[in-house]
């Protein structure tokens, strides 16, 4: 048998505070009818998580209404109503998938252990440690019946798919068959299931086959026993390789297969007709609940420690899919009861009815509910609608009339068709978001905006919310009074000068509003707001003296700080997010709908608001299957993005503008930490570390920033010097950026670039150190070609000398010779380059650095590899020229060069460098450099003879 490992994600942390002291708790898992959501709960956690099955990496919605662990979950057949039972003795109903709390439908005096909806969703059975199973009308919450007969606590309940019977099992292993109409016990099977005693993490369960013909109950011999529907006689057993008693079983939607999990921590998949196990999987922990995906070949499992996972393609493709030929029990059931028949009618209008109780699974006003439901369908695309008609749980009896033909078609159609429809549901375009926002949590304060400067937090009350603005640096940032917000702002942005807020539109009365609040202004009342009719603000951004808002009509609206409507642009697609910094605004939009592989297709563009230009635009790369979760500028002003797979990318102008992956959470991840990105600078990523299940930080306690090193996702090289290699690429990136800035500022308005020059020099020195260490490790692992390549990348002569010394010490004379010749070539180029650069500087007077570099390259001998020269030499010259220019003594060629060189050496901070390099040249001069000699003629000969030959620049000045 194949060995696979299934990766489980943590959904619920077993906390010592609740019930389970031994760390194992009973957890439940459910699919909704269209397989869009997964619901999980744990008996050691008071929260119920609703996971988005399509975007599994998004934060689950957590419903915290129970005061203690949740022991039972049930979803009404049409997936509009979720019921939960808890150790706190209450049964609560929620709307689904929204998760809004509806009502406490009933209370017990002891913990609840089992819940079940009937086929129409009109009735909920609840039972637990109390004696008596309560049958509750879901509409009005009235107790229809209390079924008393169990001696132990009832742990399993199952309505028969045909609606006649209810089966229940207790912890002592007794199974009872109830007739629903009369509420009497039809059959009593004493002690057929294992006695689980008092361990609440272990429950007895039972399950009807989807066609309702058999009831499956775990047997006493580590097997599954099937009982006949009517006579309750043993039909057959599934006995196999379970070594310990079973703790859960689940029928596949079509009833052909069954998944069973045992205390021996295995899950077995059975072919029920052949009575054979066809597959199995071992898990680290006991699996306490499983659910087949209603559409597709997937089994969701959750173990006792609260970790859940999806077991894809459970049934081998050679066999029938678990969703093929789903029995339509409505057709089969001839002995259908009256109320079931009635139940079909309202079902087509989106709600279910039953026995005088008109609508189902909803205690709110039914009319409102219906409207909501219909509008939901209207929004869905046709494919989804047909799927809705088809991809029913087996229990769902009445298909929607309108989709009847489509369902028939699909019924006959092949499985592939089903899959393709399922796929189209899967891909979902990412919604617009504001960088640094956290999702709404009822009763808790949340972040509207968290950036490197400060935070905007909000807390919702009835009808208004309370917004606070705090700066991280309390000593500098202005103190902003808290504000009461009657608009219900959900978007916000913050910078040094002010904050901007916006709210989505809610109905006709509450229009979408944009509001700007400056923190300080000379004029009174300088805050302003804009209202949008028939338009909704999706994203806001803020920069120096401008405010931007992107709306649902794909307009990019740009306002000035004072509220002047300055520009309105039309964007290409629906907005995803936007971010502003100084005078740059970056906008991300959808370029098209998602790819079939559920990849988002995003596009970014950068606007320069002050100059009215668009410096760059292009596609925004994302990791496969992920979506964008953070977008912004680094402290240096580089555009950066972070996706849900934990990859940080930074946009650089390298290769004509491309995104570099600068950080990958998978590579650095410690156990189960999530990183919530806030910002970054040249070397570090600033983020908030969230533990395990949490994906976003809470406002209280105040989160602190953690610094993480940036690191390229390097391949694991044979060198074993990943850290050095990473440093090497990072340094290269920094050098590139510094060079670009130097070019920009010198071409801009001839600003002083001394600081940048110094920075470049120290980065170069750091890079040389790194390269030298890389050379050492290359030599140690015998990668001589790579070492030679590295030497060519060295900038300073001193480092080259060092490299030669290093390889000599490592007893690699061949390599030392090679290095020597590289150094000679370098020296030659520099002599030529220097004289020419100096010449240019003098002749032009303005001494543009670029001219120097441009003239330098062709001057070199053609045999020399240009990579080394272009990388290192030009910058050095540039520096020289700039300095010379500053001094303003460009009257004479020689003078310039001489003036300049001591400064260069001193700025490097090492006179040692000078002497070392000089020594190198001296040696070379003496031994093997004919070019140098030949070049040292002409009118400057006297000057060289005057001074001792102690300096490379001297020589180059000849």
């Amino acid at each position, binding site marked *: 048998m194949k060995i696979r490992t299934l990766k489980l994600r943590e959904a619920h942390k077993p906390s010592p505070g609740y019930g389970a002291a031994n760390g194992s708790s009973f957890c439940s898992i459910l699919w909704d009818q269209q397989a869009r959501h997964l619901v999980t709960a744990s008996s050691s956690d008071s929260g119920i998580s609703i996971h988005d099955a399509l975007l599994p990496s998004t934060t689950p919605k957590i419903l915290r209404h129970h005061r203690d662990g949740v022991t039972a979950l049930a979803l009404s057949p049409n997936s509009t109503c979720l019921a939960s039972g808890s150790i706190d003795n209450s049964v609560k109903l929620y709307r689904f998938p929204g998760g809004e709390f509806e009502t406490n439908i009933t209370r017990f005096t002891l913990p609840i252990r089992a819940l079940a909806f009937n086929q129409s969703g009109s009735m909920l059975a609840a039972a637990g440690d109390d004696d008596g199973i309560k049958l509750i009308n879901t509409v009005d919450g009235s107790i229809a019946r209390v079924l008393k007969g169990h001696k132990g606590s009832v742990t399993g309940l199952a309505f028969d798919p045909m609606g006649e019977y209810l089966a229940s099992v207790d912890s002592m292993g007794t199974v009872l068959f109830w007739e629903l109409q009369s509420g009497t016990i039809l059959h009593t099977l004493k002690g057929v299931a294992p006695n689980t005693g008092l361990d609440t993490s272990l429950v007895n369960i039972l399950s009807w086959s989807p066609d309702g013909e058999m009831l499956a109950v775990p047997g006493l011999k580590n097997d599954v026993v099937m009982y006949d529907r009517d006579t309750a006689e043993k039909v057959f057993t599934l006995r196999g390789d379970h070594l310990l008693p079973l703790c859960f079983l689940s029928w596949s939607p079509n009833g052909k297969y069954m998944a069973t999990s045992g205390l021996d921590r295995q899950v077995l998949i059975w072919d029920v007709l052949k009575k054979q196990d066809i597959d199995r999987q071992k898990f680290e922990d006991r699996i306490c609940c499983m659910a087949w995906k209603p559409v597709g070949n997937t089994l969701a499992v959750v173990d006792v420690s609260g970790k859940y996972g999806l077991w894809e393609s459970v049934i081998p493709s050679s066999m029938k899919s678990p969703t093929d030929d789903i029995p339509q029990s409505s057709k089969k059931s001839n002995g259908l009861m009256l109320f079931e028949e009635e139940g079909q009618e309202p079902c087509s209008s989106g709600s279910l009815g039953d026995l005088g109780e008109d609508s189902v699974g909803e205690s709110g006003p039914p009319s409102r509910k219906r409207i909501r439901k219909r509008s939901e369908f209207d929004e869905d695309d046709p494919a989804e609608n047909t799927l809705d008609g088809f991809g029913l749980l087996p229990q769902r009896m009445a298909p929607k009339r309108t989709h009847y033909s489509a369902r028939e078609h699909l019924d006959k159609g092949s499985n592939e068709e089903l899959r393709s429809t399922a796929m189209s549901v899967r891909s979902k375009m990412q919604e617009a978001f504001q960088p640094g926002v956290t999702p709404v949590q009822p009763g808790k304060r949340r972040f509207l905006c968290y950036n490197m400067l400060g935070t905007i937090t909000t807390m919702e009350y009835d009808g208004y919310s309370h917004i606070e603005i705090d*700066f*991280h*640096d*309390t*000593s*500098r940032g202005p103190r902003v009074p808290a504000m009461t917000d009657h608009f219900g702002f959900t978007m916000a942005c913050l910078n040094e000068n002010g904050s901007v807020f916006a709210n989505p539109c809610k109905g006709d009365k509450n229009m979408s509003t944009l509001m700007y609040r400056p923190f300080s202004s000379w004029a009174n009342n300088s805050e302003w707001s804009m209202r949008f009719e028939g338009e909704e603000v999706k994203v806001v951004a803020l920069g120096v003296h401008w405010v931007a808002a992107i709306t649902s009509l794909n307009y990019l609206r740009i306002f000035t700080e004072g509220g002047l409507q300055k520009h309105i642009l039309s964007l290409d697609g629906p907005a995803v997010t936007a971010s502003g910094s100084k005078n740059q605004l970056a906008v991300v939009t959808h370029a098209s709908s998602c790819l079939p592989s559920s990849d988002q297709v995003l596009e970014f563009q950068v606007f320069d608001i002050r100059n009215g230009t668009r410096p760059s635009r292009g596609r925004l790369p994302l990791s496969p299957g992920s979506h964008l979760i953070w977008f912004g500028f680094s402290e240096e002003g580089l555009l950066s993005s972070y996706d849900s797979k934990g990859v940080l990318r930074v946009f650089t102008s390298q290769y004509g503008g491309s995104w570099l992956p600068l950080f990958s959470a998978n590579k650095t991840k410690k156990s189960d930490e999530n990183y919530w990105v806030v910002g970054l600078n040249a070397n570090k990523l*600033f983020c908030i570390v969230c533990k395990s299940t949490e994906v976003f930080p809470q406002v209280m*306690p*105040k989160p*602190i*920033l*953690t*610094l993480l090193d940036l690191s390229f996702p390097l391949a694991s090289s044979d060198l074993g010097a990943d850290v050095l290699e990473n440093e090497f690429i990072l340094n290269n990136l920094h050098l590139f950026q510094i060079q670009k800035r130097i070019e920009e500022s010198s071409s801009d308005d001839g600003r002083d670039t001394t600081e940048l020059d110094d920075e470049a020099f120290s980065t170069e020195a750091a890079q040389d150190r790194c390269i030298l260490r890389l050379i050492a490790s290359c030599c140690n692992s015998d990668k001589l070609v790579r070492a030679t390549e590295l030497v060519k990348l060295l900038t300073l002569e001193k480092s080259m000398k060092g490299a030669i010394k290093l390889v000599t010490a490592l007893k690699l004379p061949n390599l030392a010779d090679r290095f020597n010749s590289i150094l000679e070539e370098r020296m030659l180029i520099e002599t030529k380059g220097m004289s020419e650069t100096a010449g240019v500087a003098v002749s032009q007077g303005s001494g543009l650095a670029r001219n120097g570099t441009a003239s330098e390259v062709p001057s070199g001998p053609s045999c020399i590899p240009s990579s080394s020269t272009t990388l290192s030499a030009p910058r050095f010259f540039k520096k020289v020229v700039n300095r010379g220019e500053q001094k303003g003594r460009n009257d004479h060629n020689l003078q310039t060069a001489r003036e300049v060189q001591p400064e260069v050496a001193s700025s490097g901070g090492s006179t040692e460098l000078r002497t070392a390099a000089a020594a190198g040249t001296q040696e070379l001069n003496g031994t093997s450099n004919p070019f140098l000699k030949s070049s040292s003629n002409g009118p400057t000969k006297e000057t060289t003879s005057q001074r001792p030959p102690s300096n490379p620049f001297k020589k180059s000045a000849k």
Partner: protein
Amino acid sequence: MAGQSGSQLSLFTPDEVEFVAEDELVEIVPNLRMDSLNFICGDYGPFYPQIAIQVPLWLALALKKRGKCTIRPPQWMSIENLTQVLEGERESHAFQTLPFHYVEISRLLFDRARDDIPDVYMVRSLVEDIRDVRFHKVETNLENFTASAVTWKNMAAMEVNIIRAFSGRALQAFYRHENEQAVPDLDRTQDRQPQNLNDRPRRNLRPR
């Protein structure tokens, strides 16, 4: 500094012990931007808002007093860890591992940074319980005090300080008693030695 209050032996007052403890490092989260501070004991900083950094306790408290930082309670001051330690202390005879200055650090934090400690009442009562259990242990240890039989591993500064005077004096007393016995012994050995010395030349002489 030492011995101001204890006339008999070198005894520190609790304040003095606390003073010593203020050099321990704690983690703070500053809310201001500040260049690095250069002290005799070392350089600390630069400080960036919302980014945690380690500083000595005295500096942390000084900044806290001015509202410039929040102090992150040390790892061992979590409720989980403290309950575990308390259980360990109650169950076993030995001392659990806790920071050498745990009494002083916790006291200082409770006094001056109580808003930075989550569940401060719980933590405080746990620390006090642990302290009581340990002090009691120290006292019972003292009852059967012999120089060799007692294990003093993992004792904290304040606990050492309590028994410093007593144990010092006790050890002196032991020493004196031993000396009384040892002195005659020494005398004996001294007696012997000359004898031996006398013997040797004799032996040497004999062959002659």
